[in-house]
């Protein structure tokens, strides 16, 4: 165990959080992960730290931005939008801000925490490169509240970097001056949505703003132009600055260059966080190859898997051979999202799994707009009732119908041949302000489309067809008004 002092000096090391697997393959963002002291300035500098910033400062901001655009650095937070293009949306208005989204909390996602804990200097360097390219001097690094080790290591790294002249006034003895402020959240999944993150950073309830008109690039933090980038996205920049866009594009596929950090959890033999080339490795390889997860536990059959975090529609065996990149996964009816893969084997109860994910969204709904606030908790109640043995035959269609009130039209689904169903591509439509509400529809639609029989079996087994539960819980019509 370790001890810390308040001046930022670490006497000895808190061990790294486990999970990272040092597999074969190119390493863009995890190159220092295997060092015990990977988070120190000393180790960083010894392994090329801040060389990327130095390279960037030797160019004009516009050239740096162009390099990022040329490299097609896709956002690693979920939507997969090219960072360079996003940067280009900023109007010529100052002040402008960079906000780093380190509020990792999508179910199944475990990669930004590792990047922040194991290599904070890489992230800080990435922030500095982005700030330089965007011509701004204030960056806020929003770290999820429940990650104190990340706070400590970033705070320490920032204190070191300020002292050593990599951040702050006259960076690396140039005229460039940029502040980076560490900010910490306090427990709200929705804050991972960029406009909610901005609200939260303003000290408000983390409720999303409407787009339009509040696109952050134009009207973000303090209603000024703001870029919100994910931790992993920015962590790519030091390597890119040192090695260049051409080298970057030799990794991954043409549409999705570079690598992704993927967290594979659930029923695999070797769950872990892997850095994987995008669009090259298939789901099957990831789950079954020895370089990665090594197969399903107990050599069971795969039942389903979530390819991109709790918000993503489920995939099944039919999708195992899709190469992992945003475009292909989207066309197949889901998303690679935040690189969170949750594998479920044949023993998994589909209704229970769906309920658990829905419950997450119901608990995390911010409450701002009606369909999400009311719809997600209604979905949860109906699913819970089915699981508790009080389901009614009409509940299955009711669940789908509530879903269409949150996400109208046909919800994205993966194809499966034996049901004659074609994939409906991601993303869904929404009656809500942000995608949280529609995300709750993903597990329901996925589970009912594929495993309707499991729902029916639970309902058939209900002793009372739901009637007893309904009677016990129904509202007396006027009695509630007695309190006047």
């Amino acid at each position, binding site marked *: 165990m370790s001890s810390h002092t308040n001046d930022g000096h670490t006497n000895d090391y808190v061990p790294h959080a486990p999970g990272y697997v040092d597999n074969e393959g190119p390493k863009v963002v995890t190159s220092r992960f295997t060092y015990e002291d990977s988070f120190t300035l000393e180790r960083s500098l010894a392994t090329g730290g801040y060389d990327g910033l130095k390279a960037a400062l030797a160019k004009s901001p516009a050239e740096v931005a162009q390099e990022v655009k040329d490299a097609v650095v896709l956002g690693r937070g979920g939507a997969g939008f090219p960072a360079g293009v996003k940067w280009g949306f900023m109007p010529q208005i100052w002040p402008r801000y960079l906000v780093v989204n380190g509020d990792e909390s999508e179910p199944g996602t475990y990669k930004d925490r590792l990047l922040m804990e194991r290599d904070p200097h890489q992230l800080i360097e990435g922030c500095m490169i982005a700030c330089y390219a965007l011509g701004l001097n204030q960056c806020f690094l929003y770290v999820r509240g429940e990650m104190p080790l990340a706070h400590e290591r970033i705070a320490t790294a920032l204190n070191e970097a300020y002292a050593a002249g990599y951040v702050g006034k006259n960076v690396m003895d140039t005229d460039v001056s940029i502040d980076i402020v560490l900010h910490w959240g306090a427990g709200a999944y929705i804050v991972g949505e960029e406009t909610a993150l901005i609200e939260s950073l303003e000290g408000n309830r983390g409720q999303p703003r409407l787009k339009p008109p509040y696109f952050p690039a134009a009207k973000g933090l303090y209603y000024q132009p703001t870029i919100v980038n994910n931790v992993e996205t920015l962590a790519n920049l030091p390597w890119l600055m040192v090695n260049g866009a051409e080298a970057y594009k030799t990794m991954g596929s043409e549409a999705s260059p570079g690598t992704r950090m993927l967290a594979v959890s659930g029923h695999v033999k070797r769950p872990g966080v892997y850095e994987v080339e995008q669009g090259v490795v298939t789901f099957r390889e990831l789950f079954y190859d020895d370089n990665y997860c090594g197969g399903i536990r107990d050599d069971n059959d795969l039942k389903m898997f979530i390819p991109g975090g709790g918000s993503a529609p489920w995939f099944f065996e039919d999708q195992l051979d899709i190469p992992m990149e945003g475009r292909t996964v989207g066309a197949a009816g889901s998303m690679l999202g935040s690189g969170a893969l949750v594998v479920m084997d044949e023993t998994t109860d589909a209704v229970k799994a769906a309920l658990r994910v829905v419950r997450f969204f119901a608990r995390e709904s911010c*409450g701002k*707009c*009606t369909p999400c606030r*009311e719809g997600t908790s209604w979905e949860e109640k109906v699913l819970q009732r089915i699981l508790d043995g009080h389901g009614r035959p009409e509940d299955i269609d009711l669940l789908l119908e509530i879903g269409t*009130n949150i996400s109208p039209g046909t919800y994205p689904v993966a194809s499966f041949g034996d049901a004659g169903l074609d994939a409906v591509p991601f993303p869904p439509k929404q009656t809500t302000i942000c995608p949280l509400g529609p995300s709750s529809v993903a597990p329901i639609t996925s589970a009912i489309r594929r495993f309707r029989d499991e729902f029916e079996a639970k309902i058939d087994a209900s002793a009372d067809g*739901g009637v007893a539960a309904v009677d016990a819980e129904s509202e007396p019509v*006027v009695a*509630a*008004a007695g309190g006047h």
Partner: protein
Amino acid sequence: MTATENAPATTGVPFTLNGVELEAKQGENLLDACDRLGVHIPRFCYHPRMTPVGMCRMCLVEIDTGRGPALQPGCMMTVSPNMVVNTESEATVKAQDGVLELLLINHPLDCPVCDKGGECPLQDNAFAYGPGESRFVEEKRHYEKPIPISDLVFLDRERCILCDRCTRFADEVAGDPLIHFVDRGAQTQVNTFPDHPFSSYFSGNTVQICPVGALTAKPYRFKARPWDLTGVESTAAVDATGARVAIQSSQNRLVRVLGVDSDAVNWGWLSDKERFIHEATDAEDRLTDPLTRDDAGEFVVRRWTDATKIAAEALQGPAERIGVIGGARLPLEAQFLWARLTDELGITSRDAQLGDGLDPAILSGAPRATIDRACTPGGTVVLLGADPKEELPSLFLRLRHAVAEDGVKLIELTPRASSLSSYAKARLYAAPGAAAEVAAAISTDASASVGGVDAQELAKAAELLGADGPVTVLVGRANLAETADLTAAALVALHDVAPDLAVLSGLRRGNIHGAIEMGLVPGSAEGGDGAAGKSTEAMLAAAAAGEIDTLVLLGADPMADVPNRELVESAFAAVATVVSIDTFNTASTARADIVLPAAAWGEVDGTFCNLEGRLSPLSAKVTSPGQARADWIIAAELALATGHDLGVGSLGEVRSAMVETVPSLAGVDFDGLVSDADGPVIGGDRAWSLSAPSVSVPPVDGYGLRLLVDRTLWDEGTMVHHAPSLAHLATTATVSVAPAVLDRLGVQPGDQVTLNHENGSVDLAVAADGRLPDGVARIPFRAAGFDAGTLIGEGPVVDVRLDRASS
């Protein structure tokens, strides 16, 4: 976006609505455009006077801006060229049906006992757009049934649909974010911070804009069912802003007042005083019968004919020995008749102000501003007077919007930081007695502080006054313990820096501007010797000197309202006959010899003239109690009884006479006022003709602190006192000083201190007020527990000293 920008600004924006090609205005909100074009899109959270938030999702409609139809909240959309909107498509109807079902799943079915039942947007939308039945069989959300969130408002969180209207109003419009969303997701609720109630002067607006029965007003709860109410449009007359209202009654009782959206005046908002003061009309102790004194000096009830005869005798004495005080409570028609009657009688001493206002020359001798002019984006407003939030709260909301949202620049030339100080661009907190001196020092070259104001602020003010955009000075009476001449002198000094300024009157009392317009001001009597007319203070002084036989009080209570208490006492003691025409027993009616009961607000038709000179209707909704009758009838009868038939037998005839004889009313269509939400402004063209009165202010004497006496919204005024829901809100008298003064005295807030002044001393609780400059002691006027009028004499300023109370 660029297409809109490139379109010529003068043309409409073509778009398609339900298959019909129509035009929207440039920059027009889609919901507003549809409303205007006769297509209703249901909504809950949208309110045209607040920032759209797109939260309830009720107004989702299918919109195609060239990328295919998609559901969008109409309230967040500005109509863009060639936008295709379909409010009737399958997708739209499905979305609306879905949102309503979701809104209703947790909404209690207590409509039969809900105040909102029958006029509820949720009911109406559910009926028009809803699913008809609920598929929700789970248990609904439960909260403790209505909780008081302030003295006036109850909140039922089970009924709340979280539309953000009340919370947005509190934050964005009132600037009192004391209610807020609390908790998250399906548990989200509106609430206050523990022990910090929603004590906003404007809380009642939240009840009016609540789209369900979640917020209810204590004065109205369970008083009536909406379908039993009948209403008329009228004007709030409790202050001079003239906010437009609808007044509603049930069974001949006024039960509710709602704000009406007048673009020129109050934008639909009301202060709680304007909203709830109607309770006073229904008060138990209204004056119901004419009263005169018997031989023993006791009041006896009289018939009108007898009382009128007795009063007429008093009015027929020597005209120079008669004074008429008051008239601001009266409708314009009654003010006109009183002016005519006193003209006929040759009475020149008449004053609708009570020594707590301004020289009417300030209003007649300067170009007059409207509220809209003051609120013109890019303009500058100077506060030279009382805090508008305390005296003219609906006007305050307009000013607040102007300075907070529309870039109007604010200069405070006030004795302490006003309620708008956080928006002020220059802060000139002149010590009592120093306003004129400070105003005269405003200069871009200012290099030394004057009257406690830094040179930097003086220079900033000069820069703002010299900038483009109209300059409007809100002139009122900031300090009742200071002579009004100082205000006049300050205004003249401002005019030297900003010669194009216009004045927005800050006189606060009801229909005071109508009274001034009709000539109830000293020296304006037709044919009389102008110089001979006395002001209220001069009349009282003359009375005290035995030079006045009869004082007529027109809805005035000088015993309570004239700041110089000693003066009033001696006048009442000396005068032979006091005739009081009023609605309530007041300190002054109790001392009167003849009391004539008048009809109150809500009981008579008439006309109101607000501080801009804008005319609007006053409407009768209920009948007066007992024998109380309209002021114009009282005046007409007195005229007859004194042998001066004014020839008016109906309100219509009064109005005809007004249009004929009052130049500023020429062409006014009184009958059309109800249907004109803005109303005509009279007497607008006025040239600058003011000169500065000379005032010499003595240096601060040994007492050390200069006194500031000003008003708070909730005081012991007659109307507030008679409104049961409001009476207990009256400010308690404390003396407040800057925190540094407390430290010097070595006392804590709440401690008793002894206030010493020329006439003696009094013990009061002390409070700290960070808005006060050092060297100033403030006491609210007409506060509960102490009459600050006893401190005010004839001098230009009042000095006091504070000591720790001896145990």
